[in-house]
């Protein structure tokens, strides 16, 4: 017998196969109900908000401090700038 003919014959046979019965309606509805529940992200959102606010305050203080910072070596050289060398 030709291989393709054999495959076709198998296909005809396989189409008559009895498929196991399924009963999924209750599980489908359960999963849908679960997927529809909004995720509990409010605590995370609050935490992220507080962290962002704290970061802004720290950044503001850090920038201010930076602008007032002077080079520690300046004290060594500053008096020399006015001194007459000759």
């Amino acid at each position, binding site marked *: 017998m030709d291989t393709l003919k054999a495959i076709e014959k198998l296909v005809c046979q396989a189409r008559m196969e009895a*498929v*196991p019965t399924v009963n999924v309606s209750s599980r489908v509805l359960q999963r849908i109900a679960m997927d529809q529940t909004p995720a509990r992200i409010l605590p995370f959102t609050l935490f992220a908000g507080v962290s962002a606010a704290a970061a802004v305050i720290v950044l503001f203080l850090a920038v201010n401090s930076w602008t007032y910072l002077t080079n520690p070596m300046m004290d060594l050289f500053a008096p020399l700038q006015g001194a007459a060398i000759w």
Partner: protein
Amino acid sequence: MDSTLTVNQTDRADIEACLAGDEDAYGRLVRRYESELAKLMWRFCRDSTVCEELVQEVFVEAYFGLAGFRGEAPFSHWLKRIGSRVGYRFWRNQRREAGRFSLEDYDGVAPEPDSDITPEQAGEILHRLLAHLNDADRLVLTLMYFDECSTRDIAERMGWTRAMVKMRASRARRKLKSIAEQQGLLEAIGWTR
């Protein structure tokens, strides 16, 4: 218009009720189509537990996409479209984990001449043979063989072009023939005469 190509009134009423928030309506739709869908999903896995999971997956996806159902074709066509995509995705995920089956491991059929094989055995043999093809070729032949889809149906279901489906179908048949010969299909099922 042909009534087999449109949504029937019962389905339409249930879909509308479901979109209005009636969960029982969706339960009725699931019960109406679960066995039809199981026939399709069975071809992707041949395992009753996995088959149930796949059917479940299809109905969950269908529920969340229900607002996009335009009602231009029967509800079962739309479900089968989702089913084909879910099955295809299942194969792609499974491909990474599993090895291929071989007919050498298959001892379900005694090689007796004139013996007729059962539909279950035929299904199992074809499933093993088709598993040697790449996923897209396998899908085309699976839908053609078991769901009696035309190239147009497959193209519509998968969003592929018809020319591509035709090309895949012809290439897949050639490949399947050569795989069946390599695996000694005729000897394995006793159809050597």
